[in-house]
C-alpha cells in the first residue's frame, strides 16, 4: 500500500467524519437562536463546499485541461466525468440536508430562494452532463462535447456563491467567514466545522480515486473485448 493509496484517504475521512459526528452531536453546545438545529450546520456547508467547489471545480478544471491540446488525455476526461458524478451525489445531499434544516426554520421544505434555486439548477445541469455522455458512443466525441458542456455550466458557480449578496435571500450568508474576513463561528463549533470540511474533502478524494480506477478498468475491459472481437473476425476471414 503506497503513501497515496485510496485506502488511506478512506480511513482518514472515516476518522475525521467520526470526529465531526461525536463533536457535532455530543460535545458542542446548542446554538442560542437555533438550538439543536445548529448541529445540521456541521455537515451542510461542508457537503455544499465539496459539491460546488471541490467536486464540480475538479470536473470543470479537468474538462478545461482536456480541451487544451497540450494536456488532452483520456485520463483528464475520466477525472472530469467521475468528479461530476460525485458532484451530483453531493448536490443531492446539499439539497436534502438544506431541506431538513429549512422545514423547522423557515416552515417549508423548499423556498424559492436564489441560492436554493441556483443550486438546484446546477444539479440539473450535472444530470444533463451525465445524460450527454450516455448519448454519445464515440469516446472522443463524447469527451469533447462533455468538456465543452462542463465549461458552459461553470458560470453557475459564481451565481450560486454571490446569490446571497446579489439578492435578498432567505438563505443565510457565509457560514464561517464574513465578507470582511472575520470569523462567524468560535470555539468547539469552529473546530467541528473545520474538521467536517476537511473530512468531506478527503471523502471526495477517496471516492474520486476509487471511481477513476473503476472507470479505467472498465475502459480496459471494453478495449480487450473489442480486440478479442476483431481478432475473432480476422481468424474467421483467414479460415
Amino acid at each position, binding site marked *: 500500500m503506497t503513501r497515496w493509496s485510496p485506502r488511506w484517504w478512506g480511513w482518514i475521512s472515516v476518522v475525521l467524519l467520526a470526529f465531526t459526528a461525536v463533536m457535532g452531536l455530543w460535545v458542542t453546545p446548542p446554538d442560542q437562536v437555533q438550538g439543536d438545529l445548529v448541529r445540521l450546520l456541521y455537515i451542510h456547508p461542508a457537503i455544499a463546499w465539496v459539491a460546488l467547489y471541490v467536486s464540480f471545480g475538479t470536473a470543470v478544471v479537468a474538462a478545461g485541461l482536456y*480541451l487544451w491540446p497540450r494536456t488532452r488525455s483520456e485520463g483528464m476526461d475520466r477525472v472530469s466525468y467521475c468528479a461530476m458524478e460525485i458532484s451530483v451525489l453531493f448536490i443531492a445531499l446539499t439539497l436534502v440536508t438544506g431541506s431538513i434544516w429549512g422545514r423547522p426554520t423557515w416552515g417549508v421544505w423548499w423556498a424559492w430562494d436564489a441560492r436554493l434555486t441556483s443550486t438546484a*439548477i*446546477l444539479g*440539473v*445541469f450535472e*444530470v*444533463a452532463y451525465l*445524460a*450527454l455522455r*450516455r*448519448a*454519445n*458512443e464515440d469516446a472522443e*466525441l463524447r469527451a*469533447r*462535447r462533455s468538456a*465543452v*458542456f462542463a*465549461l*458552459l*455550466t461553470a*458560470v453557475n458557480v459564481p*451565481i450560486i456563491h454571490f446569490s446571497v449578496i446579489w439578492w435578498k435571500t432567505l438563505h443565510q450568508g457565509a457560514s464561517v467567514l464574513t465578507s470582511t474576513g472575520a470569523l462567524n463561528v468560535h470555539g468547539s463549533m469552529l473546530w467541528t466545522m473545520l474538521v467536517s470540511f476537511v473530512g468531506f474533502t478527503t471523502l471526495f478524494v477517496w471516492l474520486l480515486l476509487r471511481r477513476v480506477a473503476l472507470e479505467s478498468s472498465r475502459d480496459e475491459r471494453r478495449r480487450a473485448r473489442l480486440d478479442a472481437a476483431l481478432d475473432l473476425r480476422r481468424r474467421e476471414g483467414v479460415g
Partner: protein
Amino acid sequence: MIRTAWLVARKDLRIEMRSRVLLWQVTPFAVLALVLAGLALGPTKAGSSSSAPGLFYLVVLFVALAVVQRSRGIESTPGTRASVSTLGLDPGGVFLGKALALTLELWVLGAILLAGSVLFLHVALVGALKALPSVAVTLGVMSTAGTIYGALTTGGDGPVTLLPLLTLPAFAPLLVAGERSLSAALYGGALWEWWVIVVVALVAYVAVGIAVYGVLEES
C-alpha cells in the same frame, strides 16, 4: 467570418422560407401554447395580466426549443455536415450565421406572441411596445445559447429529448431576467440590472460560441 455568417444565415432562412415549417407548424404551436397557458390559469387570473410576463416567457421558452430543434434538423440530412465541413467555412462564422437566422425567426415568433399577449392576456399595447427591445435582446441570447446546445446534441442518441434537458437550465436565468424586464417595461420598476444580465449573457454566449463551435462540429 462575417461573410460566412451572412451566407449561412441566408441559407437557413431560405430553407425556412421554402419549407414554411415556421409558418405552418411553429407559429400555430406558439399561439396554442399561449392560449393553453391562459386556460391553465383560468379566465380571472389570465385576464388580470400580472402573470402575463411569466406566461409569455414560458411559452417563448418552449417555442425557442422547437426552433432550435428545427435549426439542427436542417443539418441532420445525411451528408450535410460533412459537405459543409469540406467547404472549409470558418466555424465561428457558421455559428454566427445559424444564431442570426435563429434570432430572426425567434423575433418574428416573439412579435406574434407579444401581440397574442395583448389580445389574450390583456397586456397594454404601449407597454408591449416598450418591452420590445428587452424581448429582442433576450431572444437573441436564447438563439446564441440554443445554437451551442443544439450543436452539442447533434448525432448522439435521443437528441430530441436531450436538447431540452441541456438547454432549459441554461434558459432559466434568461427566463427570470426576461420576465423581470418585461414586468418593468409593463408596470414600471428597475430595468437596468436585468438588462445587464441579459447583455452580459449575450456577449458571453457569442464569445464562447465563436471559440468552441468548431470543436463541437468536428466529427
